[in-house]
């Protein structure tokens, strides 16, 4: 085989591997090393800061929580439900909250699976006024938004992709399949 050929194939394999690593590298075990770095090594905190040793390192707190394959590798909903963490609901006693178990189905998702929005998981972490009427109107269908808005950090993207599971996890939201007949025609 010619040198050029070998080089091409080598490069092709490298590309394949790096793409696979970037897209399939969601296995928690392979990520632990690169995540939860000590604060002195995270390229964010100044190692010269003498107070750094007083701060908790993420690995200490996060490694004992239920595992997830994306974001900070923690399944926060599960952590809350299991009682692994007990975050305070309020600092003012006037703030009341109750878990609101209502699913909202978003049908207008083109050829993607439909989106089921569960109020339950969200109201376990937040109160109504965190989202309503600030980000979303309460009336179903009254807030018009698309995936581009979300990718741009609006609507769901206010949290998802920043602190809640990231937008690379398509199927976690787009999780209600529709039959072939229901998929709208595409104009190519």
């Amino acid at each position, binding site marked *: 085989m010619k040198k050029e050929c070998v080089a*091409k194939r080598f*490069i092709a394999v490298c590309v394949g591997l790096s793409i696979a690593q970037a897209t399939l590298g969601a296995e928690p075990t392979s990520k632990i090393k690169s995540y939860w770095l000590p604060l002195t090594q995270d390229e964010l905190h100044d190692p010269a800061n003498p107070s750094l040793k007083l701060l908790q390192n993420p690995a200490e707190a996060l490694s004992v929580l239920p595992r997830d394959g994306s974001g900070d590798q923690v399944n926060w909903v599960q952590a809350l439900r299991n009682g692994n963490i007990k975050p305070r609901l309020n600092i003012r006693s006037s703030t009341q909250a109750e878990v609101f178990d209502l699913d909202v189905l978003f049908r207008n998702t083109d050829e993607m699976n439909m989106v089921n929005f569960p109020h339950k998981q969200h109201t376990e972490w937040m109160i109504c006024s965190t989202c309503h009427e600030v980000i979303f109107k309460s009336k179903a269908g009254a807030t018009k938004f698309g995936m581009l808005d979300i990718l741009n*950090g609006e609507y769901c993207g206010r949290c998802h992709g920043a602190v809640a599971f990231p937008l690379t996890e398509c199927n976690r939201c787009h999780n209600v399949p529709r039959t072939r007949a229901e998929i709208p025609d595409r104009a190519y």
Partner: protein
Amino acid sequence: MKHCTVPHRSFFIRRLPIWAILLALFTLLIPSATYAEYGDVILNKRAEKAGMRPVIFPHWFHRIRFKCNVCHTEIGFKMRASANEIRMADIVNGKFCGACHNNQIAWGPENCQLCHSGLPGLKSGIRGGDATGGPGKW
């Protein structure tokens, strides 16, 4: 230009080495840029100008102890990095971080270095982990 054994017509095959190298370099760059913890916020609108290190706010630490609405509804932090005009005087007066960092709920604002702990030169914004640095404008 000579080719392997089969004559390739496709542009992508003929130009394989160039685009492949570029793509390989690009994909190798992705993980290396995301060392910070998922959801870490850098606050540096005023800190460095005032001679302090940038502030690093770790979302992970706080969400273990408080639900989202405490900061984002009760205290009123907008869910947009850099959208909150936070001044040290406000914190000392019990607003923003000072709603808890008052030596009652959490340690007080006199512990400068615990918050002002970032590397000099960091830009304000959300950083970190898997896909935080997506195409959005957090």
